[in-house]
């Protein structure tokens, strides 16, 4: 493991090793203190951008979606060598998440009634059934990989059912999501010859091929739906009208792409990261075991703050502006590091302590404002139910082996987490 230099001049947050080796929080702590709006210099692969690490600054950016737009890219990645395909592949201006107001408001209103806390709450019994099936399947085993056999399966099942994606294709959705969002990790670069894995080019190829396969799948799915309409989210999008016009296939395709990818990777990592945090803080785990009601009141929120599964989102400035005394130029990227703002000493008391009773806890794990996570209600409910059932049935569940983190600057991910347990 490389020893990290802790001086702002040497920090390059495009380096996935910082995240893979779990050193990001040390870097963030230093940046908040020394250079809270920090220029990340251009390297041979990516253009420079601003690292934003303070809570108040992320709020200021998020409240101003006309000044800081999403349609020119929402990740730190702006390649030095421009390839027109990159913009196509990242869905610039096409996905809900890369659309700016006023269109964003109207597009979001086509689906948002299905995601309100009330609408989501009505699905609790069904979500508990899914969890029960998942836990039934692991009950007889002495131990499992918690990520692939527990954490991944719940959000995958929920989003796939909503979209109308048949069970036989859920594994494919899992694999393709890993390629699209975790393509920088050699484990998912299976379409690239082994000797070439781990390079920037391998990451690009993996993300491209994963995305193309995902598009192909959903293009076929939409085609079939147009012939044989069904009452699911894709069906709703086919019927939907925006300013008197139906959505075209490309709009629906990007919608499906976003919902599938965002709906399964992020919650998976909150569940896995929550399991790990509870294991590493046995006194906190005991509090939840003694009082499971903590999950609905404070513990799930603390898991979200602690894990911040979306590591960053970026915006592009539409004109010259100033942020905490730094001059942001038109066209420059600002990268909001949610893991950092959720441990900001100005906002959270004792921020490096995992505290399942923390209140208040106004974390920004879901972002805030125009692009506030559409699926937040599902994430919260899935987290609550899975830990309720898990601790009820396997109260002694604990991590038993090495944690393998995702090599990514975008998703705070855990790839593998061996656990053992006995039935209560």
């Amino acid at each position, binding site marked *: 493991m490389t020893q990290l230099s802790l001086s702002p001049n040497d920090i390059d947050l495009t380096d996935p090793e910082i995240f893979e080796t779990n050193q990001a929080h040390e870097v963030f702590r230093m940046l908040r203190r020394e250079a809270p709006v920090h220029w990340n210099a251009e390297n041979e692969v990516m253009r420079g951008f601003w690292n934003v690490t303070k809570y108040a600054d992320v709020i200021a950016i*998020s*409240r101003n979606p006309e000044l800081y737009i999403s349609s020119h890219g929402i990740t730190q990645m702006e390649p030095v060598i421009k390839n027109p395909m990159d913009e196509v592949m990242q869905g610039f201006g096409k996905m809900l998440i890369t659309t700016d107001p006023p269109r964003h*408001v109207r597009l979001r*209103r086509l689906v*948002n*009634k299905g*995601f*309100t*806390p*009330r*609408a989501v709450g009505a699905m609790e019994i069904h979500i508990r059934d899914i969890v029960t099936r998942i836990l039934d399947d692991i009950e007889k085993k002495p131990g499992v990989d918690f990520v692939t056999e527990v954490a991944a399966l719940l959000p995958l099942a929920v989003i796939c059912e909503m979209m109308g994606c048949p069970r036989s294709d859920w594994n494919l959705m899992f694999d393709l999501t890993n390629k699209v969002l975790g393509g920088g990790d050699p484990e998912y670069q299976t379409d690239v010859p082994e000797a070439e894995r781990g390079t920037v080019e391998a990451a690009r190829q993996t993300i491209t091929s994963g995305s193309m396969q995902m598009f192909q799948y959903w293009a076929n799915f939409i085609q079939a739906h147009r012939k044989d309409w069904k009452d699911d989210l894709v069906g709703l999008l086919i019927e939907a009208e925006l300013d008197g016009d139906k959505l075209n296939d490309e709009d629906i395709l990007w919608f499906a792409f976003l919902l599938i990818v965002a709906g399964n990777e992020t919650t998976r990592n909150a569940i896995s990261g929550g399991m790990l945090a509870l294991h590493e803080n046995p006194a906190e785990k005991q509090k939840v075991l003694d009082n499971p009601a903590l999950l609905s009141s404070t513990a799930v929120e603390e898991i979200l703050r602690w894990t911040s599964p979306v590591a960053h989102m970026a915006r592009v400035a539409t004109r010259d502006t100033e942020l905490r005394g730094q001059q942001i130029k038109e066209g420059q990227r600002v990268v909001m590091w949610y893991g950092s703002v959720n441990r900001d000493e100005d906002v959270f008391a004792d921020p490096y302590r995992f505290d399942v009773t923390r209140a208040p806890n*106004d974390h920004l794990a*879901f972002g*805030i*404002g*125009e692009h*506030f996570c559409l699926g*937040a209600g599902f994430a919260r409910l899935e987290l609550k139910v899975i830990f309720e059932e898990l601790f009820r049935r396997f109260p002694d569940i604990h991590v038993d082996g090495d944690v393998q983190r995702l090599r990514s600057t975008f998703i705070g991910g855990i790839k593998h987490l061996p656990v053992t347990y006995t039935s209560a």
Partner: protein
Amino acid sequence: MKVTVDHDLCEGNMKCQAAAPEVFEVRDDDLAYVLVDEVPDELRTNVENAVRLCPRQAVRWQKEQK
């Protein structure tokens, strides 16, 4: 001071109602409604919290009109 909820943005997250139940009510249509014409001084801090905490930033103070 008057406070407003932008119904284009509101998604029924209930944060405003939790912060200031005397001022906001989330109804069956998943939208928050303002219950008072003017926010009384003693509820100002609570409404300030609602403005700050609304996930969609749909709750806003109405600008003074001359």
